[in-house]
């Protein structure tokens, strides 16, 4: 029983990132083969390759879309120590009369001395703003002062985290917090020790007009490979999914009476070890209610929250099939279910809640 649809990505090497645009109609992929490819979905739901170009001179780690109100804009980052901004422009029409679209490099951000490991556009309300992080642990904020001119991306801020960084994510805006500060969580995949924190929170201070590291999450000490804030959807707190040696969901609740210091409490809402050792990526659905994760067990796992508890609601093998029962015991308990529900989630004890 094959459940998933297939696309031949036509990349010559490992694909590192898949990104959807704001409307979910376009998809960009990037690979070790130094190419970026753009795919468009047709009415039947099939994905068609519409552009493919050599974007960097090293592995391209991440690709991300800007909000469509800034145009069709992509940002990429690479092992070649650069990040780049790309814009789709309309070329000459060919004999068939269809327009040829192609992507041009509008800017090259060359401030990093090491591999640039992640790149993400900030929330639309902040304007055309971009954050990158690099293997030497520097988080950089770039901003295009003129949204019509994508060639100008002055470096605005640099925050040194002193830990090799692997991923970053911008916060969405909270519903009931009076002054939602711009916030970025940066993850580190430093595997030299497992005692130091691997998740750092950087915040923009409106008064000093600077970005600074304001918090590190002590409960995550294993290398972090991916992190993403859930879309807020009017929630009164943030949800941050972390891909580390397990799937971790952190809950950041704003403190109502915080006068100084880090104005959130961070607690672990859920933690799942089903991927055995390493979790590679995490992604939220549009409402931030279901989390998908992929890991070393070669499975995509789906986690859903029901009134403060999280549980597994689906497992797909990497080829898109439903998994065979792994062992005789698992088989007997879950044989009759088409989708298998495991109650493996641990809700951590209140003693593990961190107060700041």
């Amino acid at each position: 029983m094959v459940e998933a649809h297939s696309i031949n990505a036509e990349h010559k090497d490992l694909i590192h990132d898949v990104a959807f645009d704001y409307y979910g109609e376009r998809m960009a992929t990037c690979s070790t083969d130094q190419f970026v490819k753009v795919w468009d979905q047709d009415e039947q739901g099939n994905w068609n390759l519409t552009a493919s170009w050599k974007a960097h001179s090293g592995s391209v780690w991440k690709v991300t879309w800007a909000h469509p109100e800034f145009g069709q804009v992509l940002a990429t980052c690479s092992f070649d120590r650069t990040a780049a901004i790309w814009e789709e422009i309309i070329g000459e029409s060919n004999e068939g009369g269809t327009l040829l679209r192609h992507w041009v490099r509008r800017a090259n951000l060359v401030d990093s001395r090491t591999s640039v490991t992640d790149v993400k556009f900030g929330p639309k309300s902040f304007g055309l703003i971009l954050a990158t992080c690099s293997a030497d642990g520097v988080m950089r904020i770039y901003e295009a002062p003129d949204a019509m001119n994508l060639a100008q991306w002055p470096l605005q801020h640099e925050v040194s985290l002193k830990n090799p960084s692997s991923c970053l994510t911008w916060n969405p805006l909270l519903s009931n917090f009076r002054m939602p500060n711009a916030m970025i969580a940066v993850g580190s995949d430093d595997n030299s020790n497992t005692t130091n924190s691997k998740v750092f929170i950087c915040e923009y201070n409106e008064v000093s007009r600077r970005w600074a590291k304001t918090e590190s999450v002590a409960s995550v000490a294993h290398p972090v490979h991916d992190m993403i804030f859930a879309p807020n959807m009017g929630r009164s707190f943030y949800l941050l999914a972390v891909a580390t040696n397990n799937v971790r969901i952190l809950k950041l609740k704003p403190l109502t009476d915080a006068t100084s210091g880090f104005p959130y409490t961070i607690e672990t809402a859920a933690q799942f070890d089903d991927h055995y050792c390493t979790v590679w990526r995490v992604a939220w659905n549009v409402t931030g209610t279901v989390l998908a994760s992929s890991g070393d067990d070669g499975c995509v796992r789906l986690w859903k929250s029901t009134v403060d508890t999280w549980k597994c609601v689906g497992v797909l093998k990497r080829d898109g099939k439903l998994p065979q029962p792994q062992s005789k015991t698992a088989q007997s308990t879950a044989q009759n279910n088409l989708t298998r529900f495991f109650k493996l989630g641990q809700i951590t004890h209140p003693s593990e809640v961190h107060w700041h």
Partner: protein
Amino acid sequence: MFVSRGEVPKLEVQWSPVHKNKFITWGPDIRMYEVLNNTISESSKNSETPKGLVLSSNTTANLLATSTNHRYVKCIDIYPKPDSEIMLAIGHANGKVTFCTFGLATVNNTLAGLELGPNSRFSRQCNAISWNPVNYNLLACGLDKHRSDQCLQIWDVEKSPLINAELSPGKPFVEYGTGEIAHSLAWFNSSPHVLAVSFNSKNIRCIDIRDASKSTNITQTRAVFGIDIAVYNNNHIVSYSDNSIVLWDSRHLEKPVVTLTQSKSVLKVLWCPTRHNLLGSLQKDTMAISLHDMQQSMEETEPSALERTVHPGQGNIHLASFSWHPTHENRLLAISQTGVLNDYCVFERMTLNWSTTSNIAWTYGQHNLKFISDKDLVYSSFEDISTIIKMRAFSQYGIKDFSENSKLVDDPIIKNVWSWLDLNRKITRAGIVPTTPDVPFPGIKTVLGLDSGTLMHKSELKHVQWVDIQGTVKTYRSSARDNALFLCDWGFDRNNALHISNVLRKLENENAYTRAASIAIFNLRMRDAIETLNKGANQQPHLSMIAMALSGYSPDKYSMWRELCSRTREKLTDPYLRAAFAFLTSETDSHDAVLNEVGIPLEDRIAFASIFLSDVKLTEYINTITNKLLDQGNLTAIFLTGSSPDLVPLLQRYLDSTGDIQTVSILVLKIIPSEIVHEHPVMMNWINSYREILDQWRMWHIRAKFDIALKAVKPPPQNVFLSCNYCGKNICPATDEKEKENDKEIKIHRMKEQTENGSNSFKFTSCPNCQSPLPRCALCLAHLGTASAKVPIRKTSSKQLTSNSSYVVTGQSVNSFSYWFSWCPTCNHGGHSNHISDWFKNHLECPVADCVCRCYSLDSTSRYCSV
């Protein structure tokens, strides 16, 4: 030099380069296994356990042969010639090389049982042995030092004299390295006459056996162990010593490409034969295999490795060795120090993402992507709230009225909420329950005066007589309680027998016999209750038994009936009957058993409470139940809060636990006055979040309808102004708010006159202020404002021209849009919108001479259409 007895015996594993399903392990003895895939026999797996060694969840291994008569084995290589049986070349501690075929001697295995030996009597260890991967007849051996003997010997097993052990030693094909030690060696695939050998713990040399004396490529290094050459890129050589893995490029052997320092000493390093630039390494005393994904850039950046570890096998036994499968993608076999084998497939890092349109895509292997969408079975199985929201939005949920909203949802709680709001509105509109402008939908708490800052009205205690039975019950009465009853749909006149029997008939028609009976009992009408149950007995026979039991009721507090019924009532399955009996058998006035009967809908319980509870107890009950529901984020609590400010925390809690932004936004807009909503940042955030989702789904029409129907946002300021080229004044004065009111009226009047004066539609082709003509359409060259002739013009009725409509919109339906000014904000050329859109159907560039602006393709958002 020999393995000391105290150490764990060395264990090695190696896949056969020829046979895809065979491998050998060697330690104290040499074993050959065959791998079986047991996925095919999946159906019969329950009955019989698979034979042989379990390697992984779907592979097992059968032991084919064991060879025990080799002692002091130092190194082994498997004969790589295709289509041959497994034959091993074994290097011994005494320098001898023997061949082993596990007794399966066949025609081409003439070597079996033969022996190649060093030409000296002194034994010295054979450190490395390797078959040439192309010229299968060549076998290279690296030996320890013995005086001035050569340490590298290359034998031609077909041509050199093959020697029996008893006879005098033969001569190798090539000899090299006088008085040196050879540690490890490897052949180049692409140039099979060259091999890389490490010597004397000092250097690595590339040796061409055609002219061995002339070795040009040499590097000084201490990393002399485990030389391995990448299959894909033959220039890549790897070796290790102690804690470091060193990568070499055979073209620039002088200095290492990169050195990877490991935390523990390295035991083995192997290139993955199926994937570019992937290196596997095993460190001492670990349970994991490290994978190094070598990253190189075209520029001068130093290459680095993307590291990860994989843990083949469970438990905490350290691994002894591993071997990559020669052809299967990323498959490796690991052996632990206790000899447990594990067949493991290294999955490529899977990246995944989730689109706003509910596609989940992930990578499968190196070249493929997989995706599922919300149309797939798996996706629908986990009832994602976002797909539910999408479905409801398509069905116009929220845009419609309360009762229709209730039909559009399946969730019973939300259904109830909408029906209750419908009821609430009917009651408040009828003027039965008073409302305030801020709280148009009062909840139970509001009408009872339990909202913070207000006091509850005193109510009057009444002993009410049972109908048809002797006895009284304590009830309470006040106008506030009556209002609460109305909101619970108990708004019938409880003293009027006709009203009550109407309510009972209605419930009987809905087959809600037990509910009807308990309502009758709570209104102290035992006869009605019994009759109702008897009617219901036609469908549910056990109800007649209940009716019989009820008929024995007497209000006497200490009767046997009471005693026995209170014992058996817990066995009743129907919550209404349970509650009815609890009411009849209660000894005090507390009625806790009825109030906490969760099977009964909240409104019935509250109605009951507002009749039978004293002021103090009622307050306590309402507050307790409100807090409980609030804590659960249960939307039913809206019965209690209504549209009072308490609603906001309830909705926030509901939203936090369900993510149902849609219902929350719609509720807020439907029941809270929009002036309050628009000033409330939290509520506006909810509404904008919901609008944003609709935008992301490109459901723009639905979002626009939502905005219109629910006044979701304040009307935005005027988007576009047209001003005259000459005088700079606004061309559309009707929309200019600064214009004086009377001035506006005059203009409207003039416009009306024009339309009534027989012209088909209002036209103006000049500035209303300075009378200078408006620019010309780039295509028809007529002044803008002129009706374009191509479009049939409909008669405009002047009635549609109210003071709110602008000059440009003349009240015509679809076609009037074609008279609109349309221009490109980049090149500032424009014309009639229908002319312009016609032009760009076939053209790319602007219709104005010398203008190369691609006006129509500039706006990237226009590529998307609304769904």
